[in-house]
């Protein structure tokens, strides 16, 4: 969860990309960053403030670096949501360590939720960045839509 930090910065911002969609996500910790990037990925497709649901799915992903792990985590969420027919609106990273990330996501059935942006097809490695700064962490992710 974002805690008090949400009062200072948004969870994510949409940045310009001619054809696709790109966000910068923020977090106090890498786990926080991963949760907020996931929120951003689904929030550009749906209005997550209006989505409430408790259908939960475990999410695991592997990768060699923090950048790889972020792409793998977001890609897993995307696939799990489409397979389960859910819109995920809440994300929890339980464990983030070298080589793997474990967590879960919950949400509501996609039927009946209005699509507000083009569906994200995939998470790309293009222009990918995960950066630690004195205030915490930020990441830039470009999605294929």
């Amino acid at each position, binding site marked *: 969860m974002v805690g008090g930090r949400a009062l200072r910065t948004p969870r994510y911002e*949409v940045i310009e990309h001619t054809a696709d*969609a790109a966000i910068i996500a923020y977090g106090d910790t890498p786990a926080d960053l991963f949760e907020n990037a996931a929120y951003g990925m689904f929030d550009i497709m749906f209005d997550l403030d209006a989505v409430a649901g408790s259908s939960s799915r475990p999410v695991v992903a592997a990768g060699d670096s923090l950048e*790889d792990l972020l792409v793998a985590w977001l890609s897993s969420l995307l*696939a799990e949501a489409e397979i389960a027919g859910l819109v995920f609106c809440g994300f929890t990273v339980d464990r983030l360590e070298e080589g793997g990330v474990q967590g879960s996501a919950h949400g509501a059935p996609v039927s009946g939720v209005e699509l507000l942006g*083009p569906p994200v097809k995939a998470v*790309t490695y293009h222009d990918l960045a995960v950066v630690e700064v004195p205030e915490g962490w930020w990441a830039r992710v470009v999605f294929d839509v």
Partner: protein
Amino acid sequence: MEARRVGDVVWELEPRGGMRVPGRVFATPELFERAAHDRALDQVANVAHLPGIVGASFAMPDIHWGYGFPIGGVAATDVADGGVVSPGGVGFDICCGVRLLASPVTVAEFRRHGDGVMGELDARIPRGLGEGSIASRRLLADVLERGAAAALDAGFGTGDDLDRCEERGTSEGARPDLITRRALDRGGTQLGSLGAGNHFLEVQVVDRVEDSEAALAFGIREGAVCVMIHCGSRGLGHQTCTDHLEEMGRAMRRHGIEVPDRQLACVPVESDEGRRYLGSMAAAANFAWANRHVLAHEARVAFAAGGIGDPLRLVFDVAHNLAKVEEHAVGGEARRLCVHRKGATRAFGPGHPDLPPGLERVGQPVLVPGSMGTASWVLAGSVENPAWASAAHGAGRVMSRKRAKAEQRGADVRAGLEAEGIAVRPGSVRLLSEEAPYAYKDVDEVVSVCDRAGLASPVARLRPLGVVKG
């Protein structure tokens, strides 16, 4: 990025750093200026780093900033010379493409049944998120193996349809056994669905014929109603590319290959990883060929149910996101090249041995959809094509989705189109603004460059009567 004009509509980026070949962009000064405005030219230069690339890193006139390759990027690598295959040169929507059907029905006849047909299309064409019209797992296995041929044998389409599909609607060498469980679970039930974003089904009318011999061979005549379908391999293709990018990033390091953008991860075509990717890609491509085939069937059913009968005949089906091993002349010698077309259409000229019966003299139909509400074009491949028999694939975006959304509300975009006599059946009204005509380049200018550069020549211009969007 410095470039110099080397021809009427040709710009060259000289090799610098690790570029193995020059970059070559086909554009008017205005289109080139737009490409230079974002990072598309950097991407042309990045593609020129691929091991084994020959000729140039090409960009079609609808070039724009993508991920890895620019959209509109074409690159060929010499297979026998360590040439690589890069999933980034295909994209996540494997074998995304366009299918055009033509009829002898006039606009006046269509208008008499317009509401009925549009209503039937609205009801029958699955779009947005979720499942398609075919959810049979049994058919899926055959589709991954044989593409549109499997859909035809299952009762969709008519006997001569396959003659008018690139590769006869079947990508050879498919390895359905390599499609992951996750890809099957994600996209297996989406056969017969459009998806969303820039995908669409449009009812159009031929408003101008520029080459009557080619139009006749293609089965297109002025004033006649057509149906154009733009879609790809849905979640199954998206997941297949995702699965391979992870694997390929690691394999690339083992092969000692370095590229300037991780999305350009690549391995030699003649490597285990390269063969695995091409086999998986072919299976996902088969899903896409079959997907457009099933949607075309649904359009025919909708026309019949709407009272027009069954007048739709296939003009052609082309992919614009694919890598294929083709034979081309390099320095006067025939070479096997792995040609990547990322947002570019194959465009074989007259006399090419792979052309179907009836098209030998005129070349392959090249389908160039414009933006929603504007014209689309049918072109014909040309013998003198300078870019590995490739041409443009669309108008090309010029405005980000964020800015397009801020410009107008979806409801206003719809009202504007309806005022011009274009019926709009959106899956999501709010999404219409992102695909509004003002977000795209002028398709007529893109086609003009194709003509002047010898990429493909104009045959007919189509304008929309009705739009079904995700």
